[in-house]
């Protein structure tokens, strides 16, 4: 434990505490407490409507979720998993591809990188509006393009088979620029000399990628995969604005949000869903970190 050098003999013991007092208290009240209280509320039956009581009911919410509402829960978990895996894989593949393509110098490339990065600075409401119009089957251009190219009709966001994929694509559209930049950072970290050595050995482009670039990008991949997974696990705002959770797109996060803040207003049940989400995050996040670290070492 280091000694604080500031203040007088008498005040120096208190300065560190004074320093963290306000932010620390704020974090306890608005950061940590709500998180922990979720556990408590998950054991209650509480509608949150004014004048309605808060009843402790033990495991009632968990019981309901795993018996009568199991199909709903299972479908939400399944959608979440598909969403997470799909977005993580797609976003990383596309991000890496873009990184390889756009990691060049020159003003034009700076401009392209900025364009690709741009979508994520917009609010989900903006993105939601843009793609609701693009994908509207009677007023949007996507239908026309698909129809003239393939001669098929599609309801897009209203199609049970397509809606989830499309929401995932919009998510990827928004954030692949970010993945790209993380990969570019990784690429820039690879020393020139390694490539020169590879070139001397007469290695082809593919071989260089497989044996030089890919292994040396391991830590960038770890960061990318982990961040994408964690961020998409809780996703619901984008789904909310695009499909409202219909047509097989209701993620666990959206299920939670709608249970708690929809017209039924079931805060207890929603808290329970937030707890399940927490368990899912821990399992997936922990597992992923373990696997990614081992892979990094192995490479």
């Amino acid at each position: 434990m280091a000694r604080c050098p500031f203040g007088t003999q008498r005040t120096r013991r208190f300065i560190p505490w004074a320093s963290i007092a306000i932010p620390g208290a704020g974090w306890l009240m608005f950061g940590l407490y709500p998180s922990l209280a979720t556990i408590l509320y998950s054991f209650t039956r509480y509608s949150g409507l004014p004048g309605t009581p808060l009843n402790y009911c033990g495991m009632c919410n968990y019981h309901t979720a795993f018996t009568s509402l199991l199909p709903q829960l299972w479908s939400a978990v399944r959608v979440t998993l598909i969403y997470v895996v799909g977005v993580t894989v797609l976003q990383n593949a596309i991000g890496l591809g873009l990184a390889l393509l756009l990691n060049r110098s020159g003003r034009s490339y700076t401009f392209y990188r900025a364009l690709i990065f741009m979508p994520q600075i917009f609010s989900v409401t903006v993105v939601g509006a843009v793609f609701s119009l693009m994908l509207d089957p009677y007023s949007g251009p996507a239908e026309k393009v698909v129809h003239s190219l393939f001669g098929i009709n599609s309801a897009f966001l209203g199609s049970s088979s397509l809606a989830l994929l499309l929401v995932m694509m919009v998510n990827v559209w928004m954030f692949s620029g970010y993945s790209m930049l993380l990969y570019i950072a990784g690429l820039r970290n690879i020393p020139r000399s390694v490539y020169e050595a590879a070139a001397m050995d007469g290695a082809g482009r593919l071989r260089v990628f497989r044996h030089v670039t890919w292994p040396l990008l391991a830590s960038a991949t770890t960061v990318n995969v982990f961040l994408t997974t964690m961020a998409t696990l809780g996703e619901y705002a984008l789904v909310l604005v695009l499909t409202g959770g219909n047509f097989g797109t209701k993620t666990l996060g959206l299920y939670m949000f709608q249970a708690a803040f929809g017209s039924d207003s079931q805060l207890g049940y929603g808290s329970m869903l937030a707890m399940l989400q927490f368990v899912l995050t821990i399992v997936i996040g922990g597992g992923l970190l373990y696997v990614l670290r081992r892979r990094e070492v192995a490479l």
Partner: protein
Amino acid sequence: MTTFQMTKAPKAPEAPQATAPMLRRLVSGARTRAAGVNLLCFAIAAGLFALPLVYVLLQAFKTYTGFLQDPTGTPHPWTTESFSAAWQQGHFGREMVNSLIYAAVPDAITLVLGVFLAFPISRGYFKYSNGLYTFFIFSGFLPGGLIPLFIEARTLHLYNSLIGYLIMTSLSGAGFFFFVGYIKGIPREIDEAAALDGCGYIRFIFTIVMPQMKPALATFGIFGFVHGWNNLILPLVMLSDSALWPVTRGLYSFFGQYSQNWPLIAAGTFIVAAPIMVLFILLQRYLVEGVAGGASFGTQGVAPGASGAGGAETGGGA
């Protein structure tokens, strides 16, 4: 989703600028080839990433009936009336001011308080500084606290109030510990020297530590601002009075209210997106290259970032 880039912001922006990578030499020898790659990159950037936005912007210049008759064609006649109509009917002027407050105030407070919180911990002034640090990192993985936060806000009368909203977003803890790692990189000798010179703690933080942290503060500040501006869920849950709504919340309602009138929606969408776009254009080099440089610090910077992402995301993006 918008939270993770904020917490994963770089430690320092001095990225190895324009190191013409070997890859390029390997990939393309000839000039024409380079031009081809350039063209391809342009096609991807413009066609896939910019086109949807341009397309929607184009719709804003149509009249309602013009749009209904020819939804996918070019506007005829061209009109800008949707912009003024959207501006009036959507109350975007008032909401713009709200958004600016919701984005700037908590952002500035978070930065200052974050440094005050991070400094003693990163210097190890407490018995369990490391333990505290680790605890925070893992607290980011705790379940999302949106529901209890909502109940708490109601009890403390922070609900549906501008000040209450600012208090909640300024103090919720997103990113406080983000600076810990960065401060560790500032040599301790400075503290000792300053203290010997009789520099007070607060003055020291403001005049010596914070200037040293400029790159981190700037990146964090910008991403924090963008995140605060874009937040939809928290205003949706915490602010019922439409006079308090930020533009995102306003657009969400506007969208449902007028979505039969696409030109109006398109105009509203662009009014809402415009300020953040201007900010982006002004700072894009810094933002984009900042992120690209940031990850070069490797996994050391990942842990706090990752925890922040989990925490802020599940915490309702507070």
